[in-house]
């Protein structure tokens, strides 16, 4: 499956998404964050990309990017989807109703990049200790300052 084909099949229902080629995969879809559930459902049921590989988040300082990798067993290909949300109060609909496996990926993105997922069943921190108030993968988080970190961890 090529990027053009993916684009052609999505264009009708989703005129606001952009499909661009991405070497080694079936393409990369940029979509507005509001259409997440709709688009992913269509990608899963309509295009057959039924296996969620990963959910990752990138901090671009002014905005945050979320990217989703899905795999289709029929096409034997990965498909990339990414969306950007403003960094002010970053929040997004949770993908768990569509892909239950997004659960831990979103927990990780929440604690590391500081994105809140609405309607997520269980948004506890996964990797960082309870009460840890930082989002380590933000660009503003500096390494090599261990003294500072120790003070700021709240007692639980």
């Amino acid at each position: 499956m090529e990027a053009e084909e993916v684009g052609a099949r999505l264009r009708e229902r989703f005129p606001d998404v952009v499909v661009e080629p991405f070497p080694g995969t079936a393409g990369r879809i940029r979509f507005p964050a509001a259409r997440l559930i709709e688009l992913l459902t269509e990608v899963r049921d309509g295009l057959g990309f039924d296996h969620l590989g990963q959910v990752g988040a990138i901090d671009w300082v002014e905005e945050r990017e979320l990217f989703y990798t899905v795999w289709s067993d029929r096409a034997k290909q990965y498909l990339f989807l990414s969306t950007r949300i403003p960094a002010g109060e970053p929040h997004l609909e949770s993908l768990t109703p569509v892909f239950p496996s997004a659960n831990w990926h979103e927990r990780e993105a929440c604690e590391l990049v500081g994105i809140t997922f609405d309607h997520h069943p269980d948004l506890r921190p996964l990797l960082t200790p309870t009460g840890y108030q930082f989002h380590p993968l933000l660009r503003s988080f500096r390494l090599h300052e261990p003294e500072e970190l120790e003070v700021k961890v709240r007692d639980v």
Partner: protein
Amino acid sequence: MWINMGPQHPMTHGLWNLRVKIDGELVLDVDPEMGYLHRGIEKISEDRHYNEIITLMDRTCYVAGMAWEHLFIQAAEHALHIQVPERAQWIRTMSEEFQRVASHLMWYAAFVQDIGLMSPFLYGMRDRDLVLDLFQSYTGGRLTYEYMRVGGVRNDLPPGFTDQARKVCDWLSDRFVEYDRLCLGSDIFHRRCDNLGVLKASECIRYGITGPMLRSAGVARDLRKDRPYAAYGQVDFEVAVADGADVTGRYLVRMEELRQSLRILRQTLDWLDRNAGPVMAENVPRWMGAPYAPVGREGYLLKREYPKGVGFSAIEEPHGEALAYVVNEGGEHPYRVKLKSPVFVNIAAARQYLVGYRVADIPPIMGSVDVCVGEVDR
């Protein structure tokens, strides 16, 4: 009653905590707690030069270091637009397969320990040591190899390596028969492991599970076959599949994968014998030419326009499908490295395959998942 199986518990094979709610011996609910081994590898990678990240990748999964090196290096090369010479590709293929053998032997050792078999644990560890010896002979390390470089591999194979490697393959294929006799040949093993930890194919896909767990449910999915990378397109092998979706199925899949790995290894060794060539790409930018580049400190590197790019790679790691996503914003460090570990997903679905079984079943089931906490927590 909630009990904490972990963070220090013989079942965990690492450092994590499985909270289990039990009624007598029955498991009512589970809640895995991760993060005890979180070292912030993704964050440290943002501060490191591409080749320096390799030292981190070895430690991401301490039983499959070579596979993770391969994963990251592929993504980095994708992001930096570097072509790798063919011989390096074959050496990488060979290294990854040896790593798969070592990892699966480690899994075998840990798994039989989980069901209470004592001596095969040492057989597995003994035979894994042979593979580690091979790694040592060409990389210099036994567990942390630091062997792959952006654009190729550090050095070519030493003379006489392929003969030794073939001997190891022969020895191992004899041992696999013994392993099967000790496990499959035992009635108690079947009583313990048949119909245990069942996770059907549809559930596996719903929960994003990959690797031997998915293949044991009858889905013949293997990135080496479906999306060939390195030299996997040119070797002949079969995807190991079982249909039990249970612990025995996962055992069968892994043992079959071991045999198929030996098959791939023999082919790669033959190829490496026949073909010589460079193992490092010529067009690697100077600041990538690792050891000589005094980069990463202020005042040394003239800032200039590096090619920007996004790199993505997916490999069939011993535990399943691992993905890496590298964003190269033109500096000497990657802007963001995102690693997806298959075990991360497999543990996340723990509730689906643990609830309803007994306390005594937890170690075999988690053993068959093959947990490597290093790559879950990163």
